[in-house]
Structures are given as C-alpha cells and as structure tokens.
C-alpha cells in the first residue's frame, strides 16, 4: 500500500516536470503555450453546465421520488437469481447512474457488513471496476455539442451490466462466499 500511495504522489509532479522540461528542451515558449491552452478550459467547463444540470436534475427527481427504489425492488429478485446478494443489488443499479450516490451506498455497505466480508468486497470491486456512465456521456458529448447520443449510452450500459456479472463471478472465485 505504501508503494502505491508513493507512486500516485510522485506521478503528477513527475508528469508536470517531464512535459515542462521536454517543452523547454524543444524550445517551446512554455508559459505562452500553457496560457493559450488553458483559455479553452474555462469555456469548456461553462459549456458542460447546461448538460450536467439537465441530467442531474432528472436523475435527482427519479431518485428522490422513490421510483428508483421501486425499480430496484422489482429488478432485485432477477439479479439475486444469478447469485448476487440482494444487499448489493441497489449498488449495481445505481453505479452507472449516480457517482456520488454509488459511493455513498458502497461506504454504507462496507460500514454495515465489514470491508472483508463477501458483500464488502463485492461492493468494493463493483465500485472500482466501472465509471458513472451517465456522467461520462453527459460531460464528454456535452462539451463538444454532440446531440445524437445514440449507441453510446447503450454500449456503456450493456458493458456495465456485464461488468456487474463479472464482478460477482470474480469475487466469488477469488474469495469464496
């Protein structure tokens, strides 16, 4: 663990150092290039805003009304049938929809069942093995103004479903029930 932490602490500074040294070595006006590139950053962040506000409010309405829980209750038995503990089912469904929601749910599962229990480990693996599909689609396509999201969302969600099944299988194989 210590080496992993050390690696991530050193990674960013060395990356910054490498880019700056290489740029100087190649005689690039580094500071001017930095400012030129950075200017794009602000307008990009602002351009994402309406997309994110729209998507996050829709998801919030769905969750806070209780409809999300009803969905989880109705799909739950189906997912338990393939060997997933019912306690983890909400996490599997929430993971692609809400990043902060899933993180909260995972912490809660680990707190309740213990980090080294089957449920705790499965929750950890599920949380770590995929990203928030809705957020990624909204931000990346929003920033460049792509309107027809089309197949992208389907690809992401299908892959998430397969990821959940893989997580259950792998955790069962590696740690046992």
């Amino acid at each position, binding site marked *: *663990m210590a080496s992993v932490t050390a690696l*991530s602490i050193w*990674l960013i500074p060395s*990356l910054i150092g*490498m*880019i700056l040294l*290489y*740029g100087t070595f190649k005689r*690039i006006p580094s500071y001017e*290039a*930095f400012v030129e590139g*950075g200017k794009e*950053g*602000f307008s*990009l*962040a*602002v351009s994402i*805003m309406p997309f994110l*506000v*729209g998507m*996050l*409010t829709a998801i919030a*309405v*769905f969750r*806070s*009304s209780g*409809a999300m829980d009803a969905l989880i209750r109705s799909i739950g038995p189906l997912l338990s049938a393939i060997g997933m503990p019912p306690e983890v089912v909400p996490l599997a469904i929430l993971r692609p929809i809400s990043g902060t929601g899933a*993180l909260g749910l995972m*912490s809660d599962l680990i707190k309740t069942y213990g*980090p080294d229990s089957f449920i*705790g*480990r499965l929750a*950890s*693996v599920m*949380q*770590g*093995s*995929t*990203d*928030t599909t809705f957020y990624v689609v909204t*931000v*990346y*396509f929003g*920033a*460049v103004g*792509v*309107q027809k999201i*089309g*197949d*992208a*969302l*389907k*690809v*992401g969600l*299908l892959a*998430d479903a*397969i*990821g959940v099944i*893989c997580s259950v299988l*792998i955790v069962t194989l590696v740690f046992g029930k």
Partner: protein
Amino acid sequence: MINVIWVALFVIGMVYAAFHGTMNSVNQAVFQSASDAVAICIGLISVLIFWLGLMKIAEKSGLLEKLSRLFKPVMRLLFPEVPADHPAMGYILSNTIANLFGLGNAATPMGIKAMKELKKLNGGSTKPSRSMITLLALNTSGLTLVPATVIAIRMKYGSASPTDIVGPTLLATLCTTLSAILIDRFFYHRRKRRERK
C-alpha cells in the same frame, strides 16, 4: 433516445411522487441537484485550465505525437479511422493513461479535448463518429489500475487488507472494458448494415 430517457426520468419520478407522497423531496432534489451540477462544473474549471494548458505544451513540443507513435499498434486497432500522427491520438492516449493511474481530474480534460479533435475529424457533425463512441466506451468502463477511493474507504472502516480487492477489481475492469469494446464493434457493424439497406 436521450430525449426519451431524460423526459421519462422526470415524468416517472413526478407521477410516482404524486402517488407516494414524496413530492416535497422531489421539490428539494430539483434545486439541490441543479446547484450540485453547477458546483461540479465550477470545480472542473481549475483542472480543465491547468491540464489543457499543460497539454498544449506537450502538443506543441511533439511529446503527444511521440506518445502516440509508441502505442501505435494498439491504437490503430481501436481507432482505425484516426490517422496515427493526428493530435487526437495523443489526447486519447493521455486520457487512457490518466484513467489507468486513477488521475480522474487529468483524465476528464484530456478526454474532452480528444472528443473535440475527433469531432473536427468528423467534419464538425453533431452525430458522434465511430471513434467518439469507442472513446466513450473506454471511459465509461472505468479502466483503472488502482482504485484509490475504494481503498481509502476500506482503510477507513478497518479492513485487514484494504488492497486485496485490487487484483479482482482489475480483472473485472478488464472484463467491462473488453465487453465495451466488443459491444461497440457490434453496434458499429449494425449501424453499417442499416445504412446499406
């Protein structure tokens, strides 16, 4: 499709709330989440400016190009439409590498920049190109070597070995990423078949 999903989330939520007496929480959630969304974007401004500035140096000095040449074989396979020495390739690689090392705040700016370059390659169309969907699939599957947040939470709750999930997580991520790439390919060929008809 996104329009239908978006409206459905609202309408189903509101109808459900009407019958289950949760309208008050819906009211609060709308404005809380709207302000959360803006806060996320504001938080993104600093990292976007910093990393896009830094990457501009990398782009101008030719470092990005060097990087893409290094991984040319793999990238050609994943992104056959993108010319190997195009700046988009460099940004895609930086995005993937930042994701691998769990540098979320560096990955997003580079991913967005890569999307912009891919859109240029696509003639500025508002429809996503094949490469754009592939890049998205790579990002939604969350390819990470070390899930730092998860490890931190496991430590907080007194795990005997907080890192013992790293291997299984990596395996699971590989499954997700591989299936994302395969599903992406499948949809691409389905689109092609439909266009021909």
